[in-house]
């Protein structure tokens, strides 16, 4: 396994490299193909899915429309349960809060169960800088930690790796150094590898799927049991969560779970649905002595103004699995913590539109992401809005702006447009041979890999006009 190379500087270069990686294609086809099949079966098996999906969007909208009320209610109830609540305006404040708690706890080893918010705020990097030993306990996060990579999918962080890759990685890094072929044996090897750290860690860090306002509890839904082993044995449990995870009630959280899990893995429920409410109480047999909740804004208050629908996102990954672009280039090409359609909508908020303007453009607008979204986020509309913002702010290439302006000028003058076509069509036909053009000077991107059909000798309207078909013009008097 090669050490990870730093990502090439721009989206196009990263995408190009990904397109040339045959192993990546195999891994992506397996993971996303499986996910699509399982989701489709789960949705088909539950006739009420569409109604549950509408209800899920309404549940999120209700919480967001009453954002301060429910956040304050959550804080009150969390404090009453014995939790400590920290508010962080941005990534830096969030990481600083986590590091301060770790220092206070005199931690050396920190276990962490998968949290995309952690990736978003750069927590792995911050922990390393603070000299803390970070142990990722989610199987896929363990894999990418061994490989020195970042997640490429929000549900399956190692979606870019085949099981054959993983076998080699484990053989190299695990203490047993066995080259295993069976998935069960690989899981057992990872379990063995992680076991001691689960109990050695002074601090366990998790994310949250929901923040329940009425109880002050946080809810995690996981499959491997690593989250419970990360949050229960260590003396200190830190939760990092985006403030958009707020829901009014436990019932709302459970309703969202029903569409979230089906959309993510096709299961009815995850193996573990855990509500964490405060630290260990008197008489409890286990649990952390300290329970900290770091509530992170990081652009979310701004999103409430500019694209509130995106705050509904429950991070299920369905839009990634169904995206024709994601399934070709994988997650790393996007260059942010979140890839795919939801990543293309979110990353400009975190990393700046100018730097990430390719992401909302690299989309065919086919609408499947919106269709499979369990909370009905109008992703194509949000991406188009980013394009409009980018255009207004002058981030688009000058050549494109000029081309559009010229084209719109001609297209808004019908007589000129007809005259231009009358000249252009015969010229363009001269590039063709036998009905096809193999090389278009103004669109090499097309003809590098596809032929282009020769245009008509005369346009449809020109043919209609010259009386080859007698029809009315329908013009206004």
């Amino acid at each position: 396994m090669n050490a990870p190379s730093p990502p090439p500087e721009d989206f196009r270069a990263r995408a190009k490299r990904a397109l040339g990686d045959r192993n990546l294609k195999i891994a992506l086809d397996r993971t996303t193909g499986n996910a699509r099949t399982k989701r489709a079966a789960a949705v088909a098996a539950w006739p009420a899915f569409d109604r549950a999906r509408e209800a899920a969007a309404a549940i999120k909208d209700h919480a967001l429309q009453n954002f301060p009320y429910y956040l304050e209610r959550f804080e009150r109830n969390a404090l009453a349960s014995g939790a400590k609540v920290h508010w962080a305006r941005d990534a830096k404040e969030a990481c600083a809060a986590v590091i301060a708690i770790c220092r206070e706890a005199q931690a050396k080893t920190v276990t962490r169960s998968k949290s995309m918010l952690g990736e978003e705020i750069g927590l792995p990097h911050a922990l390393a800088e603070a000299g803390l030993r970070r142990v990722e306990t989610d199987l896929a996060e363990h894999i990418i930690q061994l490989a020195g990579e970042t997640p490429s999918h929000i549900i399956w962080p190692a979606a870019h790796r085949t099981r054959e890759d993983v076998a080699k990685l484990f053989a190299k890094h695990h203490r047993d150094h066995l080259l295993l072929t069976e998935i069960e044996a690989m899981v057992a090897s990872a379990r063995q590898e992680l076991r001691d750290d689960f109990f050695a860690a002074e601090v366990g860090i998790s994310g949250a799927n929901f923040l329940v306002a009425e109880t002050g509890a946080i809810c995690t839904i996981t499959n491997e049991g690593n989250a419970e082993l990360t949050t229960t044995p260590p003396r200190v449990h830190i939760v990092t969560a985006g403030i958009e995870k707020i829901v009014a009630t436990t019932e709302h959280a459970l309703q969202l779970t029903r569409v979230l899990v089906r959309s993510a893995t096709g299961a009815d429920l995850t193996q573990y649905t855990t509500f964490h409410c405060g630290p260990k109480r008197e008489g409890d047999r286990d649990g952390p002595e300290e329970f900290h909740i770091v509530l992170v804004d990081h652009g979310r208050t701004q999103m409430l103004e500019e694209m509130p629908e995106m705050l509904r996102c429950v991070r299920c990954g369905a839009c990634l699995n169904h995206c024709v672009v994601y399934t070709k280039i994988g997650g790393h090409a996007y260059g942010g913590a979140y890839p795919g359609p939801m990543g293309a909508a979110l990353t400009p908020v975190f990393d700046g539109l100018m730097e990430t303007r390719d992401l909302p453009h690299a989309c065919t607008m086919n609408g499947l992401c919106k269709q499979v979204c369990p909370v009905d986020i109008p992703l194509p509309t949000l991406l188009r809005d980013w394009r409009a913002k980018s255009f207004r702010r002058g981030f688009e290439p000058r050549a494109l702006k000029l081309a559009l302006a010229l084209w719109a000028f001609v297209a808004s003058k019908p007589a000129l447009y007809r005259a231009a076509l009358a000249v252009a069509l015969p010229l363009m036909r001269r590039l063709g041979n036998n009905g096809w053009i193999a090389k278009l000077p103004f669109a090499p991107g097309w003809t590098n890999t596809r032929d282009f059909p020769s245009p008509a000798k005369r346009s449809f309207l020109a043919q209609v006009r010259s009386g080859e078909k007698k029809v009315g013009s329908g013009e206004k008097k």
Partner: protein
Amino acid sequence: MQDKSRTPRVGLFATCLVDALRPNIGFSALELLRAAGCDVAIPKAQTCCGQPAYNSGDDANARKLARQVIEIFEDFDYLVAPSGSCALMIRSYPELFSHDSALADRARKLAARTYELLSFLVDVRGFRPVGVSCKASATYHDTCSGLRGLGVKAAPRELLAAIDGLEMRPLEGEETCCGFGGTFCMKYSEISDAIVAEKTANIQATGADLLLGGDLGCLINMAGKLRRSGSATRVFHAAELLAGRAIHAIGEETP
């Protein structure tokens, strides 16, 4: 003003791609609409719906062309286009004029009367072709704007089922995007190519003689890839088959 007689007045919006690349689709649409009992006009001031500007985020130019389409077509009972993509663009006009209530109102009225050709024929006119035959096997790709934007799914299949001798074959991933995406296929041509390569592999796996669809942009993308990969699959807009005008496929030299 709007004519309320029994025969609906339809303004045929050919779309800029059909106008420049494949007039046969325009003539097919014209014949089908007439056969479906419509009084059809083809306003000569029409050019483009503005989608290239809209999808590039250039709202000012999109608005300019949207306004032009509204002015040309608002007096018809219906605007019909042989494209789900352009019809969806026109249905989206109201959001472009959110700051101008008078134009937004006109945009809404036009949007409500705008249809994709195949769904208009079936859903509004209850039309089925009579006496059309085509001895061939075919497969159908659902183009995304029509399918997910306008809900066009059953209409083309119902129409094609009425063609004598046509054997329809299922297409794996028939609802998956072909990678065209308007300006996307030029801006990110390598990603677009990876997408269309999978699509055309599925098309070839059907062994069908013909590939049919309802949007010329998607059709030339798939046809161009099929041609480059040496496939003999012939590509037509469904309207060409339905009108009995499927003689020269896309890329086959027309007189």
